[in-house]
């Protein structure tokens, strides 16, 4: 019955569920709000399943396409569709949303309905970002998701939440607004169309491409985030509640990287080739320098935040190798990072809920009191360090291989992440989990409960499955990536 409108369902089910959650009102009905939120999140995941089962891996064309006139005055359409690049991201988002709802189950006691609703609405909007094939529709979702995220960081965050929320919002808005002007310019250049696929074939002069390249780069670079516009991320992460951090790391960063593949590479291929060195340089700085910064952190959340930036540097590096291996490696890294960073932030959340500290020095000897937790944490720490057989290894390895084909030194610098990543992750793990129990409060800790085992267990399965057998993931992407690169190889100069 809804076969023609799966993508609409994927977008609107979470949003409507969010509205339903809001309707439960005050905290007196908190339990009801939680259950509705869980039902909404599960339903949102359920309606996304047909995207996998009905996906045709043999074509690079958009699938599950929906198109309706929306604003004829500007030729704007409600145009949805997914390919092998965007489909896995929608699934990842729908999946993470369920985890986030469960993760906030007990922890959030204040304004529960608003908290859950903000996440559900944001989940729907992010699905909209990945599914939009119309520039303005994309922009509406892209910007609209800032509103719930701003509230999540600002309302349920830590002591410095206001600063973090403002910084995050204004940083991302700066990039987005320049992108908006670029989109309007493209509208005129393409003869009055906001259709992204039309833009893919619009001829553009080098000056226009260059200017737009940097406008889009700022918009998406801030979201990724790339060095040196990354500084909002550690602040936002540290002050966000656990659920907020999970969504930030696992999903919103991917929105930026996705923008590279949907906008920058295919619309501006000549500028992308011309300024690839610039992006590569920034990516390598992110990998190496931010890796060193992570080493120096004493706050676990900040450490993982910097580690996220370093990992996302891999993604952009892979994209600008202009080879299937590099782009697919970047995509795999995106999905893998979605699982691993979500898991690590959940782990930190588990500890924070018990001890109300994120400082590494407040812990130590955790394995004595929480052996099960220590085992899970171990797995995710290893995955973050890129250990073979975990998902973290696959993407990094593919990107390093692709980089080695282009230039040995790119690969060399990129490979330092294997050392640095292992150093900062495992060193943190050692200080937190092993050693003597120095803090008397650690002595009183209890191991993870069934809810937490469920959360971490599911993610552990994902991390291992993707590490051991990544082929299903790359199969989905492959045709779309090859088509994208064929497109990028063609000059669009007039």
């Amino acid at each position, binding site marked *: 019955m809804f076969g023609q409108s799966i993508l609409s369902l994927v977008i609107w089910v979470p949003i409507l569920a969010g509205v339903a959650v809001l309707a439960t*009102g*005050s905290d007196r009905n908190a339990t009801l709000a939680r259950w509705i939120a869980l039902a909404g999140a599960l339903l949102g995941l359920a309606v996304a399943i047909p995207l996998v089962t009905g996906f045709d891996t043999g074509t690079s064309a958009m699938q599950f396409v929906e198109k309706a006139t*929306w*604003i*004829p*005055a*500007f030729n704007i359409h409600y145009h949805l569709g997914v390919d092998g690049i965007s489909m896995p991201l929608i699934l990842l988002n729908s999946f993470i949303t369920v985890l986030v709802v469960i993760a906030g189950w007990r922890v959030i006691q204040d*304004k529960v309905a*608003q908290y859950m609703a903000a996440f559900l609405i944001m989940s729907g909007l992010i699905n909209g970002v990945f599914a939009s094939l119309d520039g*303005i529709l994309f*922009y*509406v979702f892209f*910007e*609209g998701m*800032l*509103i719930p995220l*701003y*509230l999540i960081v*600002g*309302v349920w965050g830590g002591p410095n*939440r*206001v600063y973090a*929320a*403002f910084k995050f*919002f*204004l940083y991302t*808005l*700066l990039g987005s*607004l*320049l992108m*908006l*002007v670029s989109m*309007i*310019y493209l*509208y*005129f250049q393409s003869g009055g169309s906001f259709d992204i696929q039309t833009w893919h074939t619009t001829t553009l002069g080098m000056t226009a491409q260059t200017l737009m390249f940097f406008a889009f780069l700022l918009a998406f670079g801030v979201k990724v985030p790339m060095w040196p516009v990354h500084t909002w991320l550690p602040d936002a992460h540290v002050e966000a509640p656990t659920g907020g951090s999970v969504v930030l790391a696992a999903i919103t960063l991917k929105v930026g990287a996705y923008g590279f593949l949907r906008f920058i590479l295919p619309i501006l291929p000549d500028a992308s080739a011309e300024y690839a060195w610039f992006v590569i340089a920034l990516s390598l700085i992110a990998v190496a320098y931010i890796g060193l910064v992570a080493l120096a952190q004493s706050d676990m959340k900040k450490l993982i935040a910097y580690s996220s930036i370093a990992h996302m540097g891999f993604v952009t590096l892979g994209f600008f190798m202009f080879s299937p291996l590099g782009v697919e490696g970047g995509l795999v890294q995106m999905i893998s990072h979605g699982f691993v960073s979500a898991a690590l932030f959940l782990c930190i959340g588990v500890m924070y809920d018990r001890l109300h500290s994120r400082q590494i020095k407040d812990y130590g000897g955790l394995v004595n009191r929480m052996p099960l937790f220590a085992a899970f944490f171990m797995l995710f720490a290893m995955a973050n360090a890129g250990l073979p057989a975990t998902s973290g290894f696959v993407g990094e390895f593919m990107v390093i291989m692709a980089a080695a084909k282009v230039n040995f030194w790119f690969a060399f610098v990129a490979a330092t992440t294997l050392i640095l990543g292992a150093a900062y992750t495992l060193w943190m793990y050692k200080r937190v989990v092993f050693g003597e129990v120095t803090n008397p409060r650690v002595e009183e800790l209890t191991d993870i409960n069934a809810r937490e085992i469920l959360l971490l267990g599911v993610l552990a399965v994902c991390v291992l499955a993707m590490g051991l057998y990544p082929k299903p993931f790359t199969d989905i992407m492959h045709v779309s990536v090859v088509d994208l690169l064929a497109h990028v190889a063609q000059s669009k100069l007039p």
Partner: protein
Amino acid sequence: MSDFLTQFAPALPEIFVLAMVSLILVIDAAVDDSKRYIAYVLSLATLAGAAFLTMNDFSTMPVLALNGLFIDDPLSDVLKLFLYLTVATVLVYSRDYLRTRGLYKGEFFVLALFALLGMMVMVSASHFLTLYLGLELLSLSLYAMVALQRDSGVASEAAMKYFVLGALASGMLLYGMSMIYGVTGSLALADIAQNLSDGTDLRIPLVFGIVFIVAGLAFKLGAVPFHMWVPDVYHGAPTAVTLLIGSAPKIAAFAFVVRILGQGLESQASEWRDMLVILAVLSMAVGNIAAIAQTNLKRMLAYSTISHMGFMLLGILAGSQNGYSSAMFYVLVYALMSLGGFGMILLLSRAGFEADKLEDFKGLNRRSPWLAFLMLLLMFSMAGVPPTVGFYAKLSVLQAVVGIGYVWLAVAAVLFSLIGAFYYLRIVKLMYFDTPHDTSPIAASPDTRIIMSANGLAVLALGILPQPLMAVCVYAIGASF
């Protein structure tokens, strides 16, 4: 005889409003204080009646009447309908506020309706004399309304400033009009347009005339550097009057500008475009930057108005039907948001307490999640963040500007709107992140709550489906030019 009467037919709504205002004036003088609601109800009835008459006689093409002094075209009819709606909303929001401050008198309603009549004349004027007549009727009513609270020093000061600067602006405008008259030999906009498109040797008087006219218009719009009166008047006037000044007259001012520049002086667009570019950039810059420093919400919204007028000018300076319709869309959206913003201050105010400071909004989410949510929508809309309608208003003027090749101007505009986003976000921060220091219950009556909900949700609904309003603007401009 019948010929004599039919030429008045297009002006029937204006005549009706005038008759009703006179009636209210007489009735209100005869009733005692307990029956002031009669004036309120009659005023709303007047608006409904005028709306009926306008709808009933909706013209699909321009009709000149009264010897070319008056024009009845789709643009004027559409704008009048929005004026009625805006003024009606103003009256509903204001009622409780006026009552608790002893201003619930016939004068307020009579002056508001006279101001409306002036605006109606402005949007329907096709001649410099009628334009000026409408403008002065509007301005004089507003001067008096600002000073309605006789014993308030701030209000009297604001009224004085408003009057002196307004009179100066009117003088400039008149001077400019006389220059144009000297060049073209006519005061009718159609004749002026015809005359100028044929070319003229009198370049210098013409350009002088345009400069004075643009300066006068900028005064009335509150565009920088002619904006000094705006914050003081918005701040000093009773909030109910600020609500009126901040909403409906902007719609009339849009019509005023489009009639003079777009219809009368269109062939001289190359002359006035650069002037408007300067006005627009300065307005966006000063409005957005100065708003950050304000602690009073009314002043903050005053500066925000200045920046919004700068944005609206972007559409006008782009010229052509595309630009004018985008400016029209912007100004209608702005009126909607402005009604909501000032209306919220009225809603949160109560006897002896003005909720016009920023900290009065602290923790509103705990006191009333619904009102906080509506205010959130209004603030994000003013900041131009989708999915609220404010985004499409920005989008439409930006595309108009990029369409004429002024990409740099669009970039400047978005950078200033980024600065603007900061102070709108601050309101959201106060409402959602902070704890309330004022916990008394909100004393708004049910009907104002309902109208406020409709107002706030309209911002969201039009943000999801902006097409109907855009289509109205495109139609009104397209059928009138």
